[in-house]
């Protein structure tokens, strides 16, 4: 029997070249368990998140913006369904929008110097980046919760405000917060957000 006859159709195709051999190698970096890079995080359900956001809103109504921000950042959603993560982002953005520009820096400084302040600002930075990365989600939450704080509502009342406008205003809030956070927590804060595997 000659060798040629033993070759099947499969051998003649180059399918075998497409096998990802790295995935079969247990030592490969593809099989690196990234869960070993952070301690296990408690899972947060939708009802937890809802309770949290109503508590935060209560604080906001009471005029305690700092407390509201702290509460948000002390309970980040690291482990939970995407919907819950988005919902928490909405809460954070709502708090951020309710704080006046002149109050940002002193507030951030107080948080930074307090207990665990570095961690809290790192967490805030994660939400800022997430908000910038998903403008739809961030501003969507904002639109529902704060009915036009910008003063443009009267002007734009007649025509339908396009989502682009509100996205832009949410983005400008996030950007000015970003600037202030970097002033207080330094570039180290950005580096920490980039390396961290605990994603919000």
């Amino acid at each position, binding site marked *: 029997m000659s060798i040629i006859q033993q070759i099947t159709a499969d051998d003649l195709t180059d399918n075998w070249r497409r096998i990802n051999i790295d995935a079969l190698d247990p030592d490969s*970096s593809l099989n*690196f368990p990234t869960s070993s890079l*952070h*301690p296990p995080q408690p899972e947060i359900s939708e009802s937890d998140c809802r309770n949290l956001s109503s508590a935060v809103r209560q604080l906001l109504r009471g005029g305690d913006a700092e407390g509201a921000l702290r509460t948000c950042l002390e309970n980040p959603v690291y482990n939970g369904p995407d919907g819950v993560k988005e919902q928490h982002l909405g809460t954070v953005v709502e708090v951020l929008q309710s704080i006046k520009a002149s109050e940002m820096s002193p507030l951030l400084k107080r948080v930074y110097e307090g207990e665990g302040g570095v961690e809290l600002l790192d967490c805030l930075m994660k939400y800022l980046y997430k908000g910038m990365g998903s403008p739809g989600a961030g501003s969507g939450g904002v639109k529902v919760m704060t009915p036009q704080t910008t003063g443009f509502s009267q002007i734009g009342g007649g025509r339908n405000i396009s989502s682009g406008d509100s996205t832009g205003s949410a983005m400008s809030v996030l950007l000015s917060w970003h600037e202030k956070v970097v002033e207080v927590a330094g570039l*180290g804060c950005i*580096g920490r957000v980039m390396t961290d595997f605990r994603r919000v």
Partner: protein
Amino acid sequence: MSAPEVHHLFHNPIADHSFSADRQTLAIARDTTVELYGRVGNAFKLKDELKGHDKTVTSIDIAPNSGRIVTCSQDRNALVWEPTPQGYKPTLVLLRINRAATFVRWSPNETKFAVGSGDRLIAICYFEEENDWWVSKHLKKPIRSTITTVGWHPNSVLLAAGSTDAHARVLSSFIKGVDARPEPTAWGERLPFNTICGEYLNNSAGWIHSVAFSPSGDALAFAAHDSSITVVYPSAPEQPPKAVISINTQLLPFMSLIWNGEAEIIAAGYDCEAFRFKGGINGWQLSGTVEAKSRPGLSEEREESALNMFKQMDLKGKVKDNTQLKTIHQNTITTLRPYETSGDAVTKFSSSGVDGRIVIWNV
């Protein structure tokens, strides 16, 4: 405090540097070669080149007493250069790794050295008399990723290692027949090879860039890519540590750190200058920079002629060229080493970096 001594050797990155014990010879890892500089007056002059690696040399260490130089490279080899009257004679070390070697350091008693590698292991190398060559034993478990740095405990048995899997670990490198049984320490009592005496995760999962035991060996400091340094105080073997103190800074990450006594750490990295941390078991903080910002020569601004000013504006659109950093190092500092010590305290230390400068600092 006198001004630091600056040697701008070339315009290439310096991967690592090491001084001989008499501080007359400086070895530099430059690209694929090792350059030896001799001190001539106030300067360092190139006097020898050691060629043996065919890929980038990643790390270099001179043993202070024997004068042997060990180098390792991305070509997966380590070489021990023995000083002889005819020059340095290289001996290949059997590392048995199939990824780049990243970091090498002699143990304090100079009978062993540790080579970190991308093969997710540390090769502990020692000399085998009967075969007349350097052989290695592998520290493998539980390392999950490339080893970026190692640091020896003063007892030459315990080894700290930092890795890209965001863990700093303390392992035993005890080799029968080479090491005497070490005194029990807070890290461990019985220490067979590959005992894990401590494993510490960086909070933000940043790569560990540098590890160092304190002079007494009773504390471990490590720097990670999240701009933090962490100091660990062990309590007793198999017990959780007495204290783990982490300082997240506002700065860019640190690449290298050294202890100055038990109460000060000097760290430097992407900010191109060295910073001091002071503290103890109750807490640590950043206390300032080593470099004095008001040194002469920095603030001196030459009076510009009007003609020159307009010429610059025309040519470059600005009057002043401010591409110079305000620090001596003009790029990332990658290695710090003690240069002169008295007891446990460091009186001078040297730094090298990507800008091709060697700077000797007064503490």
